[in-house]
């Protein structure tokens, strides 16, 4: 039959002459209808074939945008409350009765402080910490101009940590100054923040981006924070990060993005 597109004037290659017998039976298919795609996709038509692939890529764990995770006290792998009045105890959070301490709440006064370390394994490698905020749940406060301090802990601490020692296994290692009070040795030279408490107590949000970045990049070892009160006659009561009710109140919100 030899039908084909066009006469010889429109067929400079003279493909009609080169067509095989099978080609003579060939009937070209109509072009696919572009109107079948949803009108929501205001994209160039050349990208339409790539849409399924793009959708798959968007659902993969590898994100192309910043992501935020929220850790709470259950993600902590180290915690202790050290007190001058209980020099060997690791959990002297709150005095209760005569010569007795418990972990129902965390009572910060001069000479009693909290050590807390969040594990950062949930932040995938190869990213950059864009923003990090720690929420410290304050229940009540007392004293003139109450405030508490957040310090990045420099010295490693572990089993047996107390007011006197930063570790007692495998051997006893003392803090440079008792209570992790050594500046530039036990704790950072300057506090991460000095949090002044408003009249009405509540959760306090502290920007800890710089500390998280140091730990995440490995520039400094992650030994957590020391939360303390340094001013006389000031008492700050926090939800205990070890209690069922309190541990969800402690939040570390981390936003990270690809480098």
């Amino acid at each position, binding site marked *: 039959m030899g039908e084909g597109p066009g006469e010889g004037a429109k067929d400079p290659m003279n493909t009609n002459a080169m067509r095989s017998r099978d080609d003579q039976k060939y009937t070209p298919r109509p*072009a*696919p209808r572009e109107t*079948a*795609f949803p009108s929501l996709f205001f994209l160039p038509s050349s990208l*339409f*074939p790539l*849409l*399924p692939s793009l*959708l*798959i890529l968007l*659902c993969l764990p590898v994100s192309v945008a910043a992501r935020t995770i929220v850790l709470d006290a259950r993600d*902590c*792998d*180290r*915690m*202790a409350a050290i*007190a001058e*009045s*209980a*020099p*060997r*105890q*690791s*959990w*002297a959070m709150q005095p*209760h*009765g*005569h*010569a*007795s*301490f*418990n*972990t*129902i709440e965390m009572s910060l006064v001069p000479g009693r402080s909290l050590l807390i370390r969040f594990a950062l394994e949930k932040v995938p490698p190869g990213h950059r910490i864009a923003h990090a905020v720690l929420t410290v749940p304050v229940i009540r406060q007392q004293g003139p101009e109450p405030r508490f301090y957040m310090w990045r802990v420099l010295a490693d601490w*572990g*089993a*047996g*940590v*107390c007011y006197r020692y930063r570790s*007692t*296994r495998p051997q006893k290692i003392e803090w440079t100054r008792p209570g992790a009070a050594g500046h530039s040795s036990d704790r950072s030279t300057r506090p991460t923040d000095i949090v002044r408490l408003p009249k009405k107590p509540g959760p306090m949000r502290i920007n800890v981006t710089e500390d998280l970045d140091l730990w995440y990049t490995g520039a400094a070892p992650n030994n957590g924070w020391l939360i303390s009160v340094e001013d006389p006659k000031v008492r700050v009561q926090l939800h205990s990060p*070890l*209690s*069922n009710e309190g*541990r969800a109140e402690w939040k570390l919100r981390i936003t990270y993005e690809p480098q």
Partner: protein
Amino acid sequence: MKCSIRTFWSCVLLIFASGPLHLSLPEVRAEDRSAGSAASNLIPVVAPSATCALVSDEHHLLIVGRRDAQSGRLFVYRLDPDGEPGADEPAQVDLPRPDPLKSFRNYPLDLVFHPSLPLLYVWQDLDCPRPDENQQKTIDSEFDHLQIFTIKDGALKPAATFGRGREFVHGRELGRMAIDPAGTRIFLSNLRIVDNGAAAIGYYDLDEKGVPRPVLLPIEGTRDAYGLPRTEFKMRATSIRVQEARRWPMGWGFVVPSAQVIIFGAWYGPAVWDTASRRAAIGHVRVPEVHQVCFITGHPVLPVVYGVSYGGDVAFRMEHADGYLTMMPRTVRVEGAKFHSPPLVIKGNPHRLAVGGIDSVVLLPLDEQGQFSGPAETIAAANEGNPVRVLAWSSRTTRLYAFLNKHK
């Protein structure tokens, strides 16, 4: 290249039909096992209403205390080289009771051996729910809670009795004792503060023969030349109030790494008693997810304390350093379990934490660091629907004994 409609919508449906990823934390599930190495090492012993039991590997004895019609006695089984109780009836050893209290039933609550001497210490109690004033005076002045037996040629012989006075409570379901590794102190659980009845724990110092030492106490109403009270030696337990950590004076277990600092079972978690500290004697740690009082025990080698919630399904592990609780507790929930016995660490490959449940014994595998690892195993121990409250372990024969009301 142009994509067909069908291909496009197929891809879209595939993406959304896959659903969100389910990230669920692994839960320890109890696996029933009717046979296996753990089950084959379990020896059920018929001992209705057993309250305590202990194995002496040195003397090949299994000693059981019971609280029933045949109360006030210890049952002593001789074990064969495989750890099986002999076919003969167990020998019975009476627990002494003063004549004025013969109408009341006494029963043993705990047994403990001296670490180096051939001595068995028995804590006994008296079933006298509402004593009148005279009966209470008699109990306080004549009933000795602590019995000491010598072990010789496989037989128990009474040696001494101690533990009388108003500071000791009676009529309790549970009571625990423990001796430090050097054998210098015996710690007791069922005490109270005499002035206000608050729950307390205490200890006796032991001499070189394993006998409690008297302590120097002032004689009321006397004065010496310096105006100070005259003193005399009296047998009195050194005690401390623990009401804030444990409301009722009952024993939930001790871990005694040294004579100075010990750990005891309390409400919602373990607590520390530093006997040398006046300002911070007690340190109570509440373990998250534990909502009841808890039994505790210690790892035989590692500085680790294990606990189980009484009647619950949560077990926890916590480290200690020289007896001071440290670092964070780790908990594990055993699905379908109800713990009713003090836990035991049984050696093996791997080591396991054994706890009595309802008609069963639950075994939790431990790794080399004493961490919980792997799923729990449940071994059937038919007990007529009752909990298995007492377990005993022989490290020589690696046999675990469960005490049942009746054996099928």
